[in-house]
């Protein structure tokens, strides 16, 4: 199997126009956003932004919050097997999402983190969902160790936690019909580095949990 070649978006202006002209108005009118600490989002890389994962739309929501000039540098990490399935999906994920394709087959001989490392070296901003999967809506899964490995390789790159709430109700896994409900976002400050990988991962999880606790709650049973 060949390594997924990293192709940067060819038309960054198209991407900015898409997010400013389509995604953001649609999110504002269709759902409504309550964002705290938006100014804490990085405007230049290298940086790693980590968020909890509830819905397909999480990536679009996060991307729509970046300043237009920063957007060209933001690369969400995405599963190569899923996003290369059809030519259309591949085009959308490359040009509009700016996805950084990651090989998630376990046991491969190649280093799965290599594309992420290369991206950080190009001064890009990586978006990661360290839960790896959307899992149960609005329930945070344990973080995958990949984040800790990546962070250790790049000790000076800030890791910024972002808590998301709402899309797990408005458009949960397995549903295709979105329901208008308010979405909430809280951006935190970079998580202080720790030498121990497990301890650092736990610190990022704790930072995300405390950010989530700040957000308005949904009371669904």
């Amino acid at each position, binding site marked *: 199997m060949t390594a997924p070649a990293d192709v940067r978006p060819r038309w960054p202006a198209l991407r900015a126009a898409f997010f400013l002209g389509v995604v953001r108005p649609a999110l504002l009118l269709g759902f*409504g956003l*309550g964002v705290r600490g938006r100014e804490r989002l990085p405007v230049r890389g290298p940086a790693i932004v980590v968020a909890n994962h509830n819905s397909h739309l999480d990536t679009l929501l996060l991307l729509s919050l970046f300043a237009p000039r920063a957007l060209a540098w933001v690369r969400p990490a995405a599963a190569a097997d899923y996003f290369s399935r059809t030519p259309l999906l591949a085009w959308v994920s490359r040009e509009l999402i700016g996805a950084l394709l990651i090989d998630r087959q376990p046991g491969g001989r190649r280093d799965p983190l290599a594309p992420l490392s290369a991206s950080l070296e190009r001064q890009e901003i990586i978006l990661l969902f360290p839960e790896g999967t959307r899992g149960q809506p609005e329930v945070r899964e344990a973080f995958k160790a990949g984040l800790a490995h990546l962070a250790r390789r790049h000790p000076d790159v800030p890791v910024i936690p972002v808590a998301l709430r709402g899309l797990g109700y408005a458009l949960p896994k397995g549903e295709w019909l979105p329901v208008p*409900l*308010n979405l909430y976002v809280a951006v935190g400050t970079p998580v202080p580095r720790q030498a121990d990988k497990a301890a650092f991962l736990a610190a990022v999880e704790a930072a995300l949990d405390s950010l989530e606790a700040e957000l*308005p709650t*949904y009371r*669904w*049973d």
Partner: protein
Amino acid sequence: MNGVPLVLGGVLTLLVIATLISEGLPRWKGTAPKTELAQRVRAWWVMAGLFVLALLLDRRVSIAFVMLLSYLALKEYLSLIPQRRADRRVLLWVYLTIPLQYLWVYTGRYGMFIIFVPVYVFLFLPFRLMLTGVTPHFLRASATLHWGLMLTVFALGHLAYLLVLPPLHPAGGVGLLLYVVIVTQLNDVAQYVTGKAFGRRRIVPQVSPGKTWEGFLGGLGVTLAVSLLIAPLLTPLHLWEAATLGLLLPAVGFVGDVTLSAVKRDLGVKDASSLIPGHGGILDRVDSLTFTAPVFFHFIYYFVYGPVRG
């Protein structure tokens, strides 16, 4: 005489005075401005600007503006209340009420406008909820969803129906809508300001500790005066009607305000959202209006339009 320009001039003057107090005064005295007050006044500029723009452009735009208010208020409500995961898709039916209700408004179908939400939606919604097959909290879901629709779509929708009533005054439906919104919002502000300055005796301390008799009476006095002043400019109301509404609407608005406070306390939130800086959410801004709009509407529908209809 169409008094809309005159009244809008008055609103503009009030906004300028408020801005001089919130931004000019601290600058002149060299003290730090009170951010919350400045935020509130700035948000008033935006809200008043959007409202007046929608009102002056075209009747369809004005109706669409009220419809947008209903949608935002309902969305806020549905995001706050306890819900059952099984009802997620039912919420789309709940939202569908909005375009239908405003279609009745736009086409002037008064009969449908007045029975659609209280009767047909009231009967349909529990039927659709039953189809989920989930019975725990069934009654809670039926009741809370319908209550939200009555408040945000049926009650607020009365604002839009004012626009399609046959004009009995040169200011037309725009005049009626402007009258009830100005009287309600000004009463809120006057009540808040006099309450802050002189408030001592609390009316409902367990629900809304900030509400005092002094504030209530201060609001009432200002509102009565404003009602008498602007009613001839905007509405076909006689003097006694303007006086009655000047006393009635502050009381009704107060009831709406504290009722929504009780709802927010039940849900454990201070504000319905943080959409409007310094004010909270849409529901926090239109709480009084959800009660004054239908009361004002049916008051004029009976006393002013009744004799005309015969």
